């Protein structure tokens, strides 16, 4: 008896979004990153298109964040200088740099918007990959900083964020005026995620200028909530829901390096084995799990996790003969 492959047909697809702009496009990037465009569930290329592979953004900050010793060891030479740090990440294979302006926080140095813009310009001058720039997380300050950054980097087609349900107008307007993309963050809630995308589109910013940050949980700490939201959003997008068709970013590094299993020493937990290996795998496993949910950009910290995730994504992109 012949076997018929069951192939699902979807009516919708994920938006295709390009980040960064080369000289010809009005920016100064030497490479751009394009994500999205899928018309199928993650990596099921036998029943639909998955034209672009997931990418990795590596996280840096404008001030030394004092991360875990395993990370500090890797970045010891560069953590006090965002320019050197960004270059190092590109050496490690980062497709994009994710720059968090932590030093803008009132409790963390309270850098002026102009100082922040200068750091962004310096990083742009130092590396050729596209940039993701996010504020310090304090709404009032970010609303002052991000428009100045957006203006200073006009033409570079940044991804700036974060827009949130109760604070999206200032960053979305800045992105609209200076032609950047917006990172729309929702608190593990697909209803708020969808509504936020609607609110942004009602401001006049077209849906394909937005990427979704659904809020990521780490392995062992609620990753299944993120995973099922990713999957549900993807199914919604594929069945034609335009307000869930945006590509997805997962902030894996931040979450994974908060997990006890990543940071506890072998001395304290001998059964858990070598700590550095464990931490790297905690980050990599969180990311590879979420790749299966349909994430497009992974924000990571450790270069070995970056290598493992990129290798995994590459292997998954090989089209199976079916």
């Amino acid at each position, binding site marked *: 008896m012949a076997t018929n492959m069951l192939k699902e047909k979807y009516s919708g697809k994920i938006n295709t979004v390009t980040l960064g702009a080369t000289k010809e496009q009005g920016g100064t990037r030497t490479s751009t990153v394009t994500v999205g465009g899928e018309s199928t569930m993650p990596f099921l290329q036998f029943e639909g298109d998955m034209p672009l592979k997931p990418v990795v953004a590596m996280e840096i900050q404008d001030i030394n964040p004092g991360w875990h010793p395993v990370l500090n060891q890797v970045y010891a030479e560069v953590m006090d200088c965002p320019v050197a740090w960004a270059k190092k990440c590109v050496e490690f294979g980062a497709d994009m740099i994710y720059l968090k302006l932590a030093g803008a926080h009132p409790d963390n140095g309270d850098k002026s918007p102009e100082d922040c813009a200068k750091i962004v310009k310096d990083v742009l001058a130092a590396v050729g990959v596209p940039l993701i720039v996010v504020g310090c997380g304090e709404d009032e300050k970010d609303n002052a900083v991000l428009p100045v950054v957006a203006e200073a980097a006009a033409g570079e087609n940044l991804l700036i964020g974060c827009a949130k349900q109760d604070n999206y107008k200032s960053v979305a307007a800045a992105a609209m005026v200076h032609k950047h993309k917006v990172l729309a963050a929702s608190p593990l809630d697909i209803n708020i995620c969808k*509504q936020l995308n609607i609110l942004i589109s009602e401001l006049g910013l077209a849906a394909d200028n937005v990427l979704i940050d659904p809020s990521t949980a780490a392995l062992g700490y609620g990753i299944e909530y993120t995973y099922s939201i990713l999957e549900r959003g993807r199914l919604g997008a594929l069945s034609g829901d*335009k*307000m869930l068709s945006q590509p997805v970013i997962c902030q894996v590094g931040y979450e994974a390096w908060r997990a006890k299993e990543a940071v506890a020493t072998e001395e304290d937990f001998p059964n858990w084995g070598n700590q550095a290996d464990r931490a790297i795998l905690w980050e990599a496993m969180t990311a590879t799990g979420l790749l299966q949910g349909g994430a497009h950009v992974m924000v990571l910290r450790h270069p070995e996790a970056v290598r493992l995730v990129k290798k995994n994504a590459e292997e998954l992109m090989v089209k199976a003969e079916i």
Partner: protein
Amino acid sequence: MILIGERINGMFKDIGKAVREHDPKPLQEWAVKQKEGGAHYLDVNTGPNSEDQTVDLPWMVKTVMEVSDLPLAIDTTDYDAMEAALIAYGKPGALINSIGCEQEKIDRVFPMAAKYQADVVCLCISKSGIPKSAEERVALAMEFVANAEVYGLQPDNLFIDPIILPVNVAQEHAVEALETIRQIKLLSNPAPLTTIGLSNVSQKTPHRPLLNRTFAVMAMTAGLDSAILDANDDMMVDAIASARVILNKDIYCDSYAKVFRQR
């Protein structure tokens, strides 16, 4: 839920006049307006006063296509006019509206559907009229599904209409129609689609919008996939959008009713 806008029909005075005079304006205005209301298909029907449907219907199709990219439900029982209209439509995805369950109609229309890659509204009516029970209606639905296979159509190329009658004069039919919808969805895999001429339920009653939307929600619960209706009845479209959310067909957000219209 696929909404088939009913308004471009020669039974309405403005459209009837426009069809007689080949005046594109009323048709095109309603095409735009129904899309804004939330319609996914536009029904086109010459009405009873067309002298030659093989001329008027293709004209209607072309006229509407000038301003709208929505797929069309071509509404006639004159199958020569239907074919002329399908040729005028010139692309896959039209909806043939409609045929009753009579073998000669199936033999005429199903090959046409396959040739022009159109879907077909199939009415659960036989030569002896509208059956009363759900069982008899489902038997007719099965005839359509079996014939689809013979003519190379998929079950989901069929929009099976269980037929609803006015609730003031044929009250016992509504519940049978609901049961029919439930059973049609079990007939095959993929299941046939279901549709209904929604406004019929309230003919000649003083409560038309209320009955229409109440029945719409009930029928959706039974598995209704589409309906021919007044796409500019906002309360109706709101009720349908709400039912879709409650049935977990669309992902909830605070602006769900607005989003439903934009799809």
